[in-house]
């Protein structure tokens, strides 16, 4: 039953990922990326990590993609991107080296995946990955990282303002 849902979703997400890379227009790439993010959210649902699935949709498919769209529209990347691609297109040495690197990585990954013994799976609690469970963990065991993250966000916000405000005093 799980596979019945997993296979189409996984296939679709891989296809959409290829779509991001091969699409000619940046908007097309961005739309493919949204689709891929939604498919990943589907995979999380199948793994019964509901909270993660919701966050995936909210943050990646929502906030981050909107940001991407804004950047694409504001900067009108089309012409700039073409020149970058042209410069890289005929670099045979770079392509061959990267090819070797990828082949090596795939070889090693396959080797690891076939040899690895993960042992019997650990049973997870029934409420694992639910919003309630994540919330309880976040405010008890992980309360310090949760609070520290607020400092991180504050610093990032100050930074964005300092670097981007128009008045150069």
């Amino acid at each position, binding site marked *: 039953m799980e596979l019945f849902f997993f296979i189409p979703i996984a296939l679709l997400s891989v296809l959409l990922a290829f779509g991001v890379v091969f699409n000619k227009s940046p908007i097309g790439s961005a739309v493919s990326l949204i689709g891929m993010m939604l498919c990943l959210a589907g995979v999380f649902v199948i793994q019964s990590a509901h909270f993660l699935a919701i966050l995936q949709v909210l943050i990646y498919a929502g906030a981050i993609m909107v940001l991407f769209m804004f950047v694409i529209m504001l900067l009108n990347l089309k012409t700039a991107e073409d020149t970058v691609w042209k410069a890289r297109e005929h670099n045979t040495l770079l392509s061959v080296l990267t090819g070797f690197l990828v082949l090596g990585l795939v070889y090693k990954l396959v080797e*690891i995946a076939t*040899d690895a013994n993960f042992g019997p799976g650990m049973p997870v609690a029934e409420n694992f990955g639910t919003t309630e469970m994540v919330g309880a963990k976040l405010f*008890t065991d992980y309360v310090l990282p949760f609070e520290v*993250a607020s*400092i991180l966000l504050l*610093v990032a916000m*100050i*930074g964005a303002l*300092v670097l981007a405000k128009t008045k*150069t005093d």
Partner: protein
Amino acid sequence: MDMIPAPEIDLVSLAPVLVLSVFAMGVLILDLFIGKNKTILAYISIAGLVVSALCSFGHADLPVSSFNGAYVVDNFSIFFTFIFAISSSLAILLSINYNEQEGIKIGEYYALILFCTVGMILLCSSTDMIMIFLGIEIVSISLYILAGIRRTDQRSNEAALKYFLLGAFATGFLLYGMAMIYGATGTTKLAGISSTIVAGGVKSQAILLGGIVLLLIGFGFKVAAVPFHMWAPDVYQGAPTPITAFMAVGPKAAVLAAFYRVFADGFHGVAASWEMALMVVAVLSMFIGNLGAIMQTNIKRLLAYSSISHAGYLLIAIIARNSLGASSLLFYMLTYLFTTFGVFGIVIILGRKGNENLEMENYSGLGYKHPLLALSMAIFLLSLGGLPPFAGFVGKFYVFSAALQEGYVTLVVLAVLNSAISFYYYLKVIVYMYMTDQKVEFQPTLSPYALLVVAIAVLGTIQLGIFPGPVIALAQ
């Protein structure tokens, strides 16, 4: 629905962090109400750093572990907290006049230094991968901004952008490595990881080793060790000089502290598999750092390469991973703090608006025109090289003897050889100062703050070189 149990919160352990965060936010708010002169913010920031450092003595019996094993206060973290407080204070003192001269009238500058220090304190006290990640990110993001704070200067922009892009990439490695280690051991706590590895409960050795490699890359980038050092010279050159000094000491020390905790405490069970990789990184850092420094004519780039080689020496302390290694790391960092701030202090004093006098030739004849400045510069450079009786020698001595105790003879021989190479370029600056004729008119900006930093640095360098005993006792 069950009640969620109230978490155990140890505010005393967190006191330095809390105090400093409050001061940082206070600086941000006060900035709105004062005029163009931001000097008062510098004083408040220094006061915050002093109070915060004193707060680290909150616990009587050490070590105290809190927050479910994510945060620890021990002698190691208190010593580091003091190193951070001193280095940030010195950076702020150097900034007061520099900012006026270069027209940096941004109050957030001081707040960001304080926030960066918050990140550093968290980093040296964390015993949980999630906390280490958050600490590194707070430190890094503050530094990206501080490097690019001279918004009208092209080099500063270049530095910030380069640092940001490469740093974000390195963070990816770090996070992926942490995820893999979590997958292999089932915990993010260093104590848990260590006991799982020792007990043989690792799910997949391959995934654990993959995670360790990725962590090595991430940490290596953050401490600017070869081959992950490419950003350092450009960023050090482009960032405002006080920030360069700050970057070379505080954040590097913080990341090394986390590096030490993760590798020497967390992964000591599989030390045989990462030891060789770390040794290669250390040796390459020393050689490429020193040989790269020989080629430089710009003093900031020279110091950037020198700091790469010093990262190599410091990694030896992590490889040794004995109690002497930990205390030698602390002592070395303290000596490096004083000498580095001294050198950068003099660089700042000799610069003036529009011309920072960063080429080595500009130091020609300094010895006759300003003998005291030249003498202090010579002391710092010789200390960086590791000449007795200055502090740098004692620091190197302790690091090397920690490694010798564990039998890493080849490593120590290579390190000593590198110390000898490093004298070539440190002496080159001294030769320029004393043995060549004056080429440019010196117009030093003799600000009391920068002179104070240089005086503290001279005192520290000589004091730690001649009477290292009390501080070494503290570091143990």
